[in-house]
């Protein structure tokens, strides 16, 4: 990756930014034209941020910016200056120690190729922190900003509902299907 500043009409002007990335402050000089997605992937090795289109449609590049899902291909890295960024590694980056949401996707076969998966997992975290109960139809609406080409979504919907049960296990079950299936008792992972 080249970051040298060129002379003349060169567009690669640099700025120093500080952002909180998965709970740690990071200060780096970045080319002003570098997208947030490329910065996370290429400079910080957070390759879970996948690039499916780079024009803001597929959602594979979704990260949480101050807790809200955003498309990292549509933001510049400099726009993350002073903000909090979460990628799926903030839940768990360890294949042997999955977070309950990741476990739910595993149990419900909510992934096939895994390319949309980090985005789907982060979006699940975001909506479940908001509230637990949703009909399947509402879950479909909530995840419709992220494309999955493999699963046909049915098992992703099931995974979101399963994650809801896991995250809220122990709190009173408000809907008939909401019996917890075990897992974490931490309702606010990564918070």
């Amino acid at each position: 990756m080249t970051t040298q500043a060129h002379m003349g009409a060169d567009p690669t002007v640099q700025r120093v930014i500080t952002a909180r990335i998965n709970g740690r402050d990071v200060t780096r000089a970045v080319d002003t034209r570098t997208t947030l997605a490329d910065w996370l992937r290429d400079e910080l090795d957070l390759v879970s941020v996948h690039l499916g289109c780079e024009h803001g449609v597929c959602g594979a590049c979704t990260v949480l910016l101050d807790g809200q899902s955003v498309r990292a291909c549509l933001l510049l890295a400099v726009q993350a200056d002073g903000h909090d960024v979460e990628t799926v590694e903030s839940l768990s980056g360890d294949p042997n120690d999955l977070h309950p949401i990741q476990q739910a996707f595993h149990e419900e076969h909510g992934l096939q190729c895994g390319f949309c998966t980090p985005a789907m997992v982060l979006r699940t975290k975001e909506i479940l922190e908001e509230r637990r109960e949703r009909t399947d139809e509402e879950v479909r609406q909530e995840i419709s900003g992220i494309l999955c080409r493999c699963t046909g979504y049915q098992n992703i919907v099931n995974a979101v509902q399963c994650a809801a049960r896991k995250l809220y296990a122990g709190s009173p079950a408000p809907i008939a299907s909401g019996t917890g299936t075990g897992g974490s008792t931490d309702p606010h992972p990564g918070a």
Partner: protein
Amino acid sequence: MTTDITPAAVDAAPDGQPKRKWIGRSMKRVEDPRLLTGRGGFIADQKIPGLLHAAIYRSPVPHGRIVSIDATAALAIPGVVAVVTGEDCKAKMNPCMNFGPTTIPQYPLAVDKVRYVGEAVVAVIAESRYLAEDGVDALKVEFEELPPVVDPMKALQEDAALLHEEHGSNLAYERTFTFGEVDDAFAQADLVVSDTLHWGRSAGMPLETTGAIARPGLNGVLEIFCNSMNFSYFVWLIATALNVPSNRVTISPVPAGGSFGSKFTAHKVPTLAGFLALQVNRPVSYIEDRFDHIMNSDHHASDRYYDAKLAVTSDGILLGLDIDVVDDYGAYLQFGVGTHGNALSQGVGPYRIKNLRYGLRAVLTNKCQQGAYRGFGSEVQNWVLERLIDQAAERLGMAPEEIRRKNFIQPDEFPYKIPGGNLYDSGDYPAVLDKALSMIDLEHWRKEQKRLREEEGRYIGIGLATTQERSVFSSTEFWYWFDEPAFPITSSPESATITVDPAGEFQVLLHSQAMWGNSPETVAAMVVAEEFGVDPSTVNIRYADSAHALPGTGPGGSRFTVMVTGAIRGAAKKLQKKIIEIAAHTLEVPPEDMEITDGRVQVKGAPELGQSLAEVALTAYFFALNLPPGMTSGLEEAYTYDHPLTTLPSPDRSDLGIFYPIMGHNCHIAVMEVDPETGMTTWLDYVAVHDAGTIVNPITLGGHVTGGTAQGVGTAQLEELVYDSDGQFKSSSFWEYLVPSATEVPPMKLGHVETPSPYTEFGIKGGGEGGRMATPAVISAAIDDALREYGMRVRNLPVRPADIVAAVQAARQEQKAD
């Protein structure tokens, strides 16, 4: 039958019941954890020291001569390393691998001419992708525009401009096959239904594009890392294109973020990356961005225009099928017409149609080339056949399920030879239909349909389709089209190596492709677990690079699970023999008295007399003097499994032989509401029942059904690669090419019927192509049914809301005029 079709695989206890511990159990995938934590290891995630990046200048014109390329400004940009053009390709490499006529050559960068919007013309190599794209922006390329050839019918006219002058015509291929007495069948028919149909151009469109990194390595070996499928089948052809000895190129498989056909033998990207790396003698990465992939990938999919006729008796018996199809293949015929071989493998569907004519013209136009997409062209035939049958049912006043049931090949008729020569191994089509009907209350929906129309003015439609899902192709389908094929290949093997290491742990080596979205590792682990009685989670799976790979063909045509299971089981048998011989020798008992159970080798009936696999492994690796005489050290066996049932076509092609015999089947039923004012549709119910033989892993098979159905929804209602009448490309991003989101795909009820194949290990059939085989047919039928009073007939896919509104308005105009 003249062929020996004795079933090869037997897998049942004496009472006829299969005895299995793992096969058939829903098992969580062993591939998941790394993917869930963002460590999929995709091609764009690979970091290599000193890596350069390539970006592509794509043709802005549909057809033209390249007049000049001025790279001065690009090369002046600091960080731009090189600019490579088609002239370099022409001078230093051979045309790319090609299964079509040699008069239609192709290079990874256009040579002399451009033939479609988006075709790669120049590659800029730089220290970063950003700088490479700066370089592309700075290029000055001049074209002399030629008349665009867009409409495939006009392409065949005398005065049409030629895509490939050397070929002499825009007709790339033409042939008509006639099987049975087609003219007689139509003469005898009480009713002939016919239609002109168009299946629009879509594509597999995985979320991850195709990409490759090439590195000139030690000892002059060019190493290519790529996510293209079945590399061990074609690496030598890439070497030929690159003018490098085949033993000086290796391909290392990298997991793919989905393929659906789009990465099947995708060669342009690894060939280009390899060529670029050789030009600068440094590692180069070329990863398509979405524009590259949509405009310039190896595989757009079928784009077919049909004149189709079906001969029927007054009581609904189907007598004959007559298909005339023009397929708009785009600018190159790289992969030949195998997509129509797929159509012929199940040309008459699940029905007892005895007579079939199939006329094909493959046409060249100024569009991206065509290749594979889930169904490989057989799903199009399914749609055409089901369209005609629905029309026949309507004309005869029969229910859609009734006419189908009446014509089904019956369970006792298998193995069944269809017109054309392919064989269906087994099936129980009435059982699949019954199962689907039991999962949906059709009577209820038919009443509702009437009530809602009368009481609330709403339009409900019910669609039903019963279609085939052929699996496990044999390569003959790619060349039987030609009387004198250049390369009449008959192999399509798959291999596996099983190692028990000195500590007794299992390693499996697969030989044709890394993971691409389904579950090769889970399947391999389950089969090893089944064979040795170990826990599948303890089995480790690795992938060979092409320098180590045994024969393999990779995923495609729903073959992989069947074939890799055959390979693993074959290797397991060899390994079991060696394990038993070692233990028997150690324990001084006859080998035939021993068996392997629960990860131990022991005397039958006396389990305390035995050894753990770890004990046997230690002997095998470190105590050569304790081995049976003549045996060598180690505990590893490999096996190459060839196609279980294939025969040669007859020389006169009156019989195409057996080439796709492992026949799955499905029934889908959809209930939809259609709004005639807006053309929008809403799902009310969806049932999908599949028979993929013995199920290996129900949860992943279900995933193929739901995933394939979603893609069927896309093909039927949303997705289209559009070239306008000037040849400009109108769908180069996801803003125009509409991949279904969660709200457009129906919640589905899934059911399974298991009719084991008598020819495969465990009786498995392929199921990877899933719902896409049937969904376009049920959606078309449901929309027609909802708007029957307007004479709606879906003839063109995708059928968009505007098409529905236009059809309704036209019908209303006509009704007013009457």
